[in-house]
């Protein structure tokens, strides 16, 4: 069984990725980088050191889940990728360009980012206008704009709510609307902050389908999540953060393998049930229900 790459403090994700243990992820990293973060430190004005040295390279077309304890720096990290936050130290490259000095308006064409709290994002009086805001700012007009808006609303199951005031939608549907607003911008990089939170069965299925669709189109998807089953089933790579840095980085099978459990526990995470049952039965790393069922079927 492949071992997970445990990134030594400060050693950096790029060097960690060279480990033999992350062969699958490593192969894709030969591709062009969508995101390159090196030595990223962020200190908030009141003194909180939210990031203490993050190194992370994400190839074009990768799907990456970012997980970790509350307050481990996940949201702070992704807010550097569209210029909402600027590095205290270190560099951030998006699509090959250093974001330092880039305007948020220009970065918005490359990186779409949803907020954890939709109410910090939503401001329009109609769902349709909310979703149209981003693509219009990127220069879309007329039927192209209408199509982008209609597609995005349909993707999140809100096609019939186009003329509704967003605040007449419940909280979880407002969260889906916030996702639609980002999808409509059709950016090469899409970042979702806790997209399944508060979603019911259908909402989680929609989000899963959205991630799958974006990846199929060759776009790069990052998502912050505390839902380990969703993470294991929907993403090709899992980056684990603790105290402002990356401590684990690999495929779901690697990150949820028994050898990595102590590192997961140190950042208050636990592997999905399927992984725990698989380890108990000596089946190796089975991060998803289907992996566990397959491994059991093979053994019996």
């Amino acid at each position: 069984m492949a071992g997970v790459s445990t990134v030594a403090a400060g050693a950096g994700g790029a060097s960690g990725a060279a480990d033999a243990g992350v062969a699958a992820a490593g192969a894709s990293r030969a591709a062009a980088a969508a995101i390159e973060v090196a030595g990223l430190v962020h200190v908030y004005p009141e003194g909180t050191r939210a990031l203490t040295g993050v190194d992370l390279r994400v190839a074009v077309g990768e799907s990456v889940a970012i997980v970790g304890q509350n307050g481990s720096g996940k949201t702070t990290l992704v807010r550097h990728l569209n210029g909402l936050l600027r590095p205290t130290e270190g560099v951030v490259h998006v699509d090959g360009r250093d974001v330092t000095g880039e305007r948020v308006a220009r970065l918005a064409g490359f990186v779409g980012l949803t907020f954890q709290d939709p109410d910090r994002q939503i401001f329009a009086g109609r769902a349709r206008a909310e979703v149209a805001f981003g693509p219009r700012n990127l220069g879309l007009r007329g039927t192209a704009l209408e199509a982008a808006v209609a597609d995005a609303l349909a993707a999140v199951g809100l096609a019939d709510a186009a003329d509704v005031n967003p605040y007449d939608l419940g909280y979880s549907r407002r969260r889906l609307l916030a996702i639609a607003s980002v999808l409509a911008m059709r950016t090469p990089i899409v970042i979702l902050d806790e997209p399944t939170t508060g979603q019911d069965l259908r909402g989680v299925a929609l989000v899963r389908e959205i991630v799958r669709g974006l990846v199929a189109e060759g776009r790069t998807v990052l998502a912050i999540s505390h839902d380990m089953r969703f993470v294991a089933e929907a993403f090709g790579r899992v980056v684990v953060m603790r105290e402002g840095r990356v401590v684990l980085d690999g495929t779901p099978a690697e990150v949820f393998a028994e050898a990595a459990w102590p590192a997961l526990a140190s950042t208050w995470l636990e592997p999905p049930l399927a992984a725990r049952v698989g380890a108990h039965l000596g089946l190796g790393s089975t991060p998803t229900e289907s992996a566990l069922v397959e491994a059991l079927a093979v053994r019996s």
Partner: protein
Amino acid sequence: MLELRGATYRYAGYARPVLHEVDLALRDGEIVGLVGGTESGKSTICLVASGLAPLSIGGELRGEVRIDGEPTAGLSVHELAQWVVIGFQNPATQRSGVAATVFEEVALGPMNLGLPVAETLARARRALATLRIEHLADRDPARLSGGQGQLVAIAGLLAMGPRHVILDEPTAQLDPEGSNLVAAALRDLAATGAALLVAEQRTDLLDGLCDRVVVVDGGRIVLDGPAAATLEDRRLEDWGVEPPSRVRLARALAARGLPSLAELGWPA
């Protein structure tokens, strides 16, 4: 005991009610899970049970809410707060906006109940310790991560020493261990005789925590029974509710003709 009797509720400005004839009794010391799809009426039941609907947000309630046998109609918001507290889905909704530090935010509830200063401080310290967020005490409550904000909001409720507690998706933004800490705090509260109602999408949390689970669909209670049996009900998915991991896994094993979790020696 906290009871809804024949509760039918219509939001202000809406033509039709969103809850219909809801009967729900939460016994002392009982933790009741509330599940249902998006906009099924879970959050509305929470608002009605806490008294905030219609007391604070208006609208029209038919039927009644009783706390320890007494109707709540006619009570003011601050009187009601001594009997039942509510935690919202979005911690930003909960935050007072007047406290400069997390410690002050958590102390605000007991302070508003008019408790002596020493008792107020002791309760705030204890609540922070229970959820292991002492290190956040001096932080600005407006500058926390989503999950940290949620823990602070729950600490604020614990510090009030509530008689009964209503929580609307208390762990939505929490890491798994944070959820476990909240679950342990809720069990401790129930042990003091509080009745708890916990609305959640994450049925894994409810599976180990609740005595009873209630399913709501279209503003009506459609199932009410012991937690384990309710969470294994085949109709859960039709109501938009994801079954717990153990139930999904059990079904996946059965579908392939493989041994059950128990036969495999799980839980270990």
